[in-house]
């Protein structure tokens, strides 16, 4: 196995992805990721230097809307599914130190 994913990397990815893995899950994730990376490394056999990265399939561009207000008060709908709300706002753990 060419790719080795260490604890530090898994912890770092956990911070980026906001996922907390148990020790067991972590071991599994390290193995899975290494194996997947080994597999995707097969792409290295392909010379892609001449190809431009393709983000969109079609040459469609300039899809715009006009600057016209079309929405009215959306607070009720926006907050309809909030796990915790107060005074028309979402409640989250404090963000101020």
């Amino acid at each position, binding site marked *: 196995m060419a790719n080795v994913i260490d604890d530090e990397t898994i912890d770092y990815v956990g911070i980026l992805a906001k996922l907390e893995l148990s020790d067991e899950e972590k071991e599994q994730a390290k193995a899975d990721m290494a194996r997947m990376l080994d597999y995707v490394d097969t792409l290295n056999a392909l010379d892609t230097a001449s190809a431009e990265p393709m983000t969109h399939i079609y040459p469609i561009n300039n899809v715009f809307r006009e600057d016209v207000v079309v929405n009215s008060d959306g607070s009720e709908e*926006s907050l309809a599914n909030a796990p915790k709300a107060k005074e028309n706002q979402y409640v989250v753990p404090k963000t101020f130190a």
Partner: protein
Amino acid sequence: MKQYETVIGLEVHVELATKTKIFCGCSTAFGGAPNTHTCPVCTGMPGSLPVLNKQVVEYAMAVGLATNCDIARECKFDRKNYFYPDNPQNYQISQLYKPICTNGHVEIEVNGNKKQIGIHEIHMEEDAGKLVHDPWEDASLVDYNRSGVPLIEIVSEPDMRSSEEVIAYLEKLRTTIQYLGASDCKLQEGSMRADVNLSVREVGSSEFGTRTEMKNMSSFKAIARAIAGERARQIERLEDGLPVIQETRRWDDNKEASFAMRSKEDAQDYRYFPEPDLPPIVISDEWIDNVKAKEPEFKDAKMARYQADFGLPAYDADIITSSKKMADIFEAATAICGDAKKVSNFLMVDTMRLLKDAEMDPEDMSFDPENLAKLIKLVVAGAINSSVASEVYEHVFKENIDPEKYVEEHGLKQVNDEGALRSTVEQVIAENPQSVEDYKNGKTKAIGFLVGQTMKAMKGKANPGMVNEILQELLK
């Protein structure tokens, strides 16, 4: 002690003056109750998708053209990924790989020295929502009314060396963008925000030092204080043999100190990648020409024209053109009354005083320039004297009253009737023998007191020139 040079680059965020958000049809108006200007798109509902507001592209292009940037023929949006509750999708749609404008510059002037400040790029992005602290629950409350308000971020080169240069640069951007109508650029309200990237190095060094990024300054003065504070902090570390750490710091203007915003959970690895939900923007020469054609006369050109056409002194022309609103009032009032000098005086003296007293941004002046013009016509016609004019102007400024009606209704017309003036002056002379004597003994200043007493007796409406003449004659 070693001599240090400060190296500063700025990241300036400007909220654009569109009616709707960048990716949905919600209003950008200030002051709505929390979350009333929201929809599935700007609250990050599953299944919602962004659609770009064309006006955002046009404003960004206009600012790019006005700051001598190259406009990208193709630009794209990218996602910037980070978790924070003010960011409903936990990614911000921004531009990293192909921004709309690059490679520009503006010219600033500090103490008579001109200097070019490079603009690395300008990109379009969406603003975040607002977080407020709820002391009752020791929690935070999220309001997405500002989520998705369009921003441009103007990234300068590290070309500034002092807070004076920084402020001159910001003033330049502010007036330029205000003239374009692309934003009202108010630091206090957050529609213009500057993050300061600062490093220090020994004078003569060609290498840059390690820089920090400072956020959260809401006035030019706070920016100047933050620059001084951060320069001192970095120099102190270097003098102590400690490295400067590349980090983001939050400026606390009350404490006059900055604090690192580091956290274990804050990796600052934004995993940018092209936004698959938005096709590219292709900008033709024709589109650029159209935007260019709508370009207004900017401050520098206006200033030159005011000096040439209206004979304003450079100083006055500078002050008046430093606000688009002020310049608009000047031009409109002058066109009606034809007396540029008098309009200029009202703006330079009375207006500046009233703005200062009210701590008001000139852009927020809302009176009709026609009312200023009418007021000046009354003065020129001798219908009111200058002190009454000042008083009436205050009402024009604050309440946008019609001066003709106001003068009529309040009986403020100047008294030019020689008989009435003469009898009042005679009475004042009779009541103030001491001043009369002083005057006759060569204290010529005493006449000022007598003029004042006459004006007072006539409730300020006397023609001051005539009062003076009559006094001189009677005291001979």
